[in-house]
């Protein structure tokens, strides 16, 4: 799919949720723009992101009760919604991180196995 631009990958839905959650845990309360910048920065532009999808992710996380939101004032003195991770969100993040590590480990092993032949 993403053949045209090697090095860039589409972001999987579940992965984005995980990244957003992790960002909020690491940086504390953030608005959507801040989250998008952080992901951009951390991924060193490897991940190509429609920044709007961050909001879908935020909605989803909020519906699940893993994050909460509040209105505040952003750096440029604008009204913005600030999101912060909840206690349940932290637990979920721990669970998902562990899951992710396990699965990516397995996948990595499988892939390296195939590559060795």
């Amino acid at each position, binding site marked *: 799919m993403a053949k045209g631009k090697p090095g860039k990958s589409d972001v999987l839905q579940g992965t984005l949720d995980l990244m957003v959650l992790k960002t909020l845990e690491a940086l504390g309360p953030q*608005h*959507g*723009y801040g989250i*998008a910048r952080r992901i951009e920065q951390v991924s060193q532009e490897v991940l190509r992101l*429609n*920044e*709007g*999808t961050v*909001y*879908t992710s935020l*909605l*989803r996380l909020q*519906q*699940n*009760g893993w994050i909460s939101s509040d209105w505040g004032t*952003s750096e*440029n003195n*604008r*009204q*913005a*919604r600030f999101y912060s991770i909840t206690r349940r969100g932290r637990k979920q993040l721990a669970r998902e991180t562990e899951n992710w590590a396990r699965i990516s480990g397995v996948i990595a092993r499988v892939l390296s196995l195939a590559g060795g032949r």
Partner: protein
Amino acid sequence: MPARLRTFASRLARLFRRGAPDSAFDDELEGHIGLLTERYVRQGMTPEDARYAARRQFGNQTALREERNEMQTFASWDRLAQDLRYGLRLLVRNPGVTAAALLTLSLGIGANTAVFSLVEGLLLKPLPYQDAARLVVPATIFQRHKSDRGSVAYADVLDWRAQSSLFEAVAAFRPTGLDLTGDEEPERVQALVVDEDYFRVMGRPMRYGRPLALGDNLPGAPTAAVLGHALWTRRFGADPGVVGRNVEINGAQVLVAGVVQPDSTWPEDAEVFLPLKIAGARDADTLRRDNHIYQSVARLARGVSLQQVQSRLSVMGGRIAQQFTNRAGTNWKLHTLAGYIVEPYLRQTLLVLFAASLLVLLIAYVNLANLLLARGATRAHEVAIRNALGAGWKRLAQQFLAESALLALGGGLAGILAGKWGLKILLRLAPPDIPRLAGVHIDLTVLAFATALCLVAVVFAGLVPALHAARQAPVEVLRETARGASQGLRGGRIRRLLVVAEFALAIILLTGAGLLVRSFQRIRRIDPGFPTANLLTLQVALPRARYPGPPQYAAGFEQLTTSLRRIPGVVSTSATSSLPVDGGGFYLGRVFLREGQPEPPASADTAAAWSVVQPGYFATMRIPLAAGREFTDRDTADSPLVIVISRAMARQMFPNQSPLGQRIRSWRDENKYREIVGVAGDLRYNGLTDDIGNNVYVPHRQDSWSRLQLVVRTARDPHILLSSIRSQIWSIDRKLSISAVQTMDQVVENHMAQPRFCMFLLCVFGGAALLLAAIGIFGVMAYSVAERTREFGIRIAMGALRADVLRLVAFGAVRLAGAGILCGLAGAFALTRLMKALLYDVSPTDAATFLLVSALLTLVALAAAYLPAHRAAKVDPVVTLRYE
């Protein structure tokens, strides 16, 4: 789970705020884009470019908003409503298909609603009696008559009553007819003469007064009566004051002891209860083991099962059969009351009808699926595009299901209405002697059943096309439709399979119907042994109060028949104790010995039914006399005892000699020698389909009964003489009650009512199945011809004759029908034996019926293929190929 619950809650909350623009969210998105823009401006872009780049990086805002809406509300509800709307629009747009589907479904559901009402009311609904599960009917098994519903001896009842661990109470009773006389018009009612346990067995307290108890049943006690609820409301105006008063029954004054509650006693037609008065009887005749003149009903003790009691009774009954020679070849059978009321023949009829209606329903389902599939085929293009655009198969299935749900709703409602109407017809056609019919109507259980049928229709008719659509790769469909070849092969194959199934089901149904028709023809052809036209029968009982003994009975009936003869239009009259073809009266079985023949077990006696007749009986009935004479006025109480025997009996007792002048006696009962003066033609007494049995006739003056059936041979339709016959009888005795007035033709008709009922319904169902199968095969053939237009065009262009094309299509139809017929014949072969009990003189695997039905269905298939075949043959190659 809690997370999901929270989602649900937030969606629910959102449901009430729907439609309000969510400006906060929009502000948030705008804020984000603003920050991005500022960033690009800082990097040196013009504000315009920066804004554009920011929007691009942000992505599709509209899609985001929609996604958010969907996440926050119940989008599936919206989709369902959308699907329903879309389905409705499609249904309206194809009125032909929709009407066919609705008609098919309402036919299937209607038939099942009606038949299931019968099954539920007669077989499934519990009896209205107190704790009815413990009510049982002990009966005698007579191996000689292949019957397990025989009446019982009083000594048997006493034996059972002694087993208090098995039975809580055991009653003996005898149904009889009574005349209610007095100031009002005499009325004949059904009555029960019951012993002291009867009301304890039935178990329900009285509405008023007291039940008949032991004191009423001691010999010599004053007679008391208990009134049935219906009679009490009808004749006594529901007046509680009637208890303790006297009423006139059979011309005698009887004290009313009580009134029962409605629906609390069995048999349900009994309206008066009188005591048997044999409690503690010690006389030999009452206690004789072969005096099978009672019926019994009993209540099982708590905690014992029917099987336990039955096995105990079998042991006891076996011992009695060994102990008493007059009980050889008998035992006891315990019926549940429910099983006794709905006798096996009726039960079988109901089950066959139910099976037939289910078959019709199956065909209806198949047809429905076929119709939707056909429509699905014309929509293949649309479905393929939606599939290609990313609609998953679940989404497509939902669409199809919504559509079939709409159809099922409409078809179901129409079906229930049709069922209500059908039930009315069923009840009108139903034979008059079916018990419990009053309790048959469409109730909640029936409605639940009909609803379940609708749900099955939704799933079946919706899923078949949905699965089919899901299995097709959109690319191929699009390629095919683009090429104009329309639908792929697989859809055609499913539809052909469905048609084969329809034919198979139809042939099972039609074979069943065909067998019943043939059986009914056989019954129709049975010769009752005498001409039944212009013959009126009625029952008269002479009350003991004014006709104290046998001489008065004889004189009374002679006065009646002679005076009836004076009515213009009456050809001749006579009287008998029992009428052939189950026409009424009392059937008395006796056993006979020739003069000099030793008594059993040294030799075998001959059983025969004993009838008491007036002189002129054979002439009036026009029963042919094979030899000798019939009774005359000279056969009196003082003249030598005489008897007329039937031909079958003559052959059996006197194989190689003339029976005339021989003497026989009924050795266990009357035990007097009677001289045979005549041999009469054979008759069937227990109904048309009964085997020919032995019969003997004796003159009424030599054995005078107080209740006889009068027979009146008329010159023309006997109905027009009815009122003059009545007034003639009442001019002799105003207080005589006349009952069971019917022509002999009616008797014969009534006897054929049940087989006719079953045959008629099965033919209706078979016709419906035939119609549905024809529609099914027509649809498939028409479709496949349309599909293959180009092929036919090429064939004709290449030199094929139109007859060849015609044959090709016809052959296709016959092949489909043939496959269905073969499967159906196998099914019919397996299933028709289940209806063996309903068939008279026809084998369940009657080859002629199977052949005929197969031929019929093949013809129907050919007829249905006629139009499509002609269309195929008329294909103009130039037009079709240019059209390409």
